[in-house]
């Protein structure tokens, strides 16, 4: 009947017994329906030239259909923030030469070389780049909106392996009903979709967040069983005096996307346990599709602050660092023979090994044709240690990436913005502190600090309260003359 077969990735990713529900209308599609719709969608893509698909991924059922359709067409799909500024999107299109851009906003002009259609833009001439690698399935952005965003290249095998690991770690059964609490272009949000569809469970698609009435109406109407959140969601739920007793179906909460304060881990663990529910703390990176570790509720007492043990199929080792690495703050050069260990208490860079590790990064269309460059080994850039039982504790960042409300922010970009855009003339330095970025301004005034926070927020499209800008008399320096980031981090 159709020239396309939903083999490999898609068939394993969408269990026929799973379900997708549109919270606004109540419309429900079974996994079989989704597979059929994906195939039909894919038929409309057969005449496209080579290259990946770009999908501006809103949180709606249309996005899920287009995404699965892209997979059915065996195209690598890049999921993009639907609020990606025009200039950034144009730059990405120029560099990656997508065969089509789906889910484009109404009224937006198609870039040169692209034809507007009913559902997005299609490239007119075939590009000069070689076709993407056959294993390449999913492309997710790394961070931020400054500089030149690059893509994480994920194979279908990695995506499926991680979906299965998450299913095992959380014990996802066909009875689970998860809402889309997080954007689908965000690896954590996407992994909720993947793991539930693969497990034969249900996903309720809602564009509303935990601060909106329709979200909680959906929780009760559809009997939602779990929530997924990054630290700031838990700050909000705490502030809301969230009480799971008011929502009898809701018995599992998961947290990832950065470190949640110990006090709140304990609070939510107790709040959930009091109603027979569970709080899972998890750790991951987009580069690992994304989940690497999980701390189940029953193992949480006595281990608050840990992100758990590796998910099934994964292992952690700790790469010991030279003094240069720990003092410099800059990304360490990867040495072939650096010492690694799993011995308890030894602190160093967390290195993850598992089937879910990315193939590599890509900054251009040509790099999409590359094969696996990592061999299943990911140097995370996080610092940490393992305890006697193999539980991982994270202690800081080696690389210059911070998080603001779950969004990765390149701290070097922040410093570049400080110099270029904020009008601040003195030296400044940015360090990560949990879910925000702390910026130290030499000789700054209180008003200047406030203005800088506002500028950074606008430039990076994040909320100003995610930037804690403080005046300092003098930035601490290393003997080398470089900024002493460790001292600054200790001062946050």
């Amino acid at each position, binding site marked *: 009947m159709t020239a396309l077969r939903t083999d490999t990735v898609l068939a394993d990713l969408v269990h026929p017994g799973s379900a997708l529900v549109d919270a606004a209308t109540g419309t429900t599609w079974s996994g079989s329906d989704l597979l059929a719709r994906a195939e039909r969608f894919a038929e409309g893509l057969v005449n496209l030239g080579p290259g990946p698909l770009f999908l501006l991924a809103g949180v709606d059922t249309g996005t899920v259909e287009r995404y699965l359709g892209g997979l059915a067409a065996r195209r690598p799909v890049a999921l993009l923030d639907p609020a990606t500024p025009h200039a950034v999107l144009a730059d990405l299109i120029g560099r990656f030469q997508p065969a089509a851009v789906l889910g484009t906003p109404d009224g937006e002009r198609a870039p040169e070389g692209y034809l507007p259609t009913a559902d997005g833009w299609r490239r007119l001439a075939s590009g000069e780049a070689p076709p993407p690698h056959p294993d390449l399935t999913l492309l997710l952005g790394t961070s931020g909106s400054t500089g030149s965003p690059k893509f994480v290249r994920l194979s279908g095998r990695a995506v499926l392996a991680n979906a299965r690991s998450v299913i095992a770690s959380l014990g996802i059964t066909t009875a689970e009903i998860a809402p889309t609490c997080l954007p689908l272009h965000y690896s954590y949000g996407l992994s909720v979709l993947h793991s539930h569809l693969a497990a034969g469970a249900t996903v309720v698609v809602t564009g509303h*967040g*935990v*601060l*909106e*009435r329709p979200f*909680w109406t959906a929780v009760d109407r559809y009997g939602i069983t779990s929530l997924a959140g990054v630290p*700031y969601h838990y*700050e*909000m739920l705490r*502030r*809301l*005096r*969230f*009480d799971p007793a*008011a929502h009898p179906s809701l018995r599992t909460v998961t947290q990832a996307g950065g470190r949640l304060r110990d006090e709140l881990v304990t609070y939510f663990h107790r709040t959930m346990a009091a109603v027979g529910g569970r709080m899972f703390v998890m750790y991951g990176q987009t580069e690992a599709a994304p989940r690497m570790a999980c701390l189940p509720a029953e193992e949480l007492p006595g281990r608050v602050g840990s992100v758990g043990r590796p998910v099934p199929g994964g292992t952690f080792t700790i790469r010991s660092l030279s003094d240069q690495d720990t003092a410099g703050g800059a990304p360490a050069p990867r040495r072939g023979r650096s010492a690694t260990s799993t011995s308890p208490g030894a602190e160093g860079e967390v290195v993850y090994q598992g089937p879910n590790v990315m193939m590599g990064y890509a900054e251009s269309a040509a790099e999409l044709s590359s094969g696996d460059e990592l061999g299943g080994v990911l140097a995370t850039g996080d610092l940490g240690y393992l305890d006697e039982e193999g539980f991982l504790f994270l202690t800081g960042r080696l690389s210059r990436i911070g998080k603001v*409300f779950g969004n990765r922010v390149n701290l070097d970009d922040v410093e570049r913005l400080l110099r270029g855009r904020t009008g601040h003339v003195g030296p400044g330095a940015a360090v990560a502190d949990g879910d925000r970025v702390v910026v130290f301004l030499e000789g700054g005034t209180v008003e200047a600090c406030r203005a800088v926070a*506002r500028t950074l927020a606008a430039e990076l499209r994040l*909320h*100003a*309260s*995610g930037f804690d800008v403080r005046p300092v008399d003098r930035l601490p320096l290393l003997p080398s003359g470089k900024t002493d980031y460790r001292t600054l981090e200790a001062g946050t």
Partner: protein
Amino acid sequence: MTLVERLRGVFVQALDLGQDVEVEKLEYRGVDAWDSVGHMTLVAAVEDEFDVQLDTDQVIDMSSFKVAADMLKNLGVPEG
């Protein structure tokens, strides 16, 4: 100062609103600053200014300036 004037001040300060914003017509997500993060800042500022404590439903339902003003009236904050 009237309740509405005080509330306007709270919104401007908490959401760092510019002078061109029509504060009294504002709705949740109506400006970039009033997102989920801004909402929590706003709720804390409202609680401080009017010495009230909002419960879960009130925090969730405070979806516009008008709703916030009506809610405060219902909580017994004098309008004058």
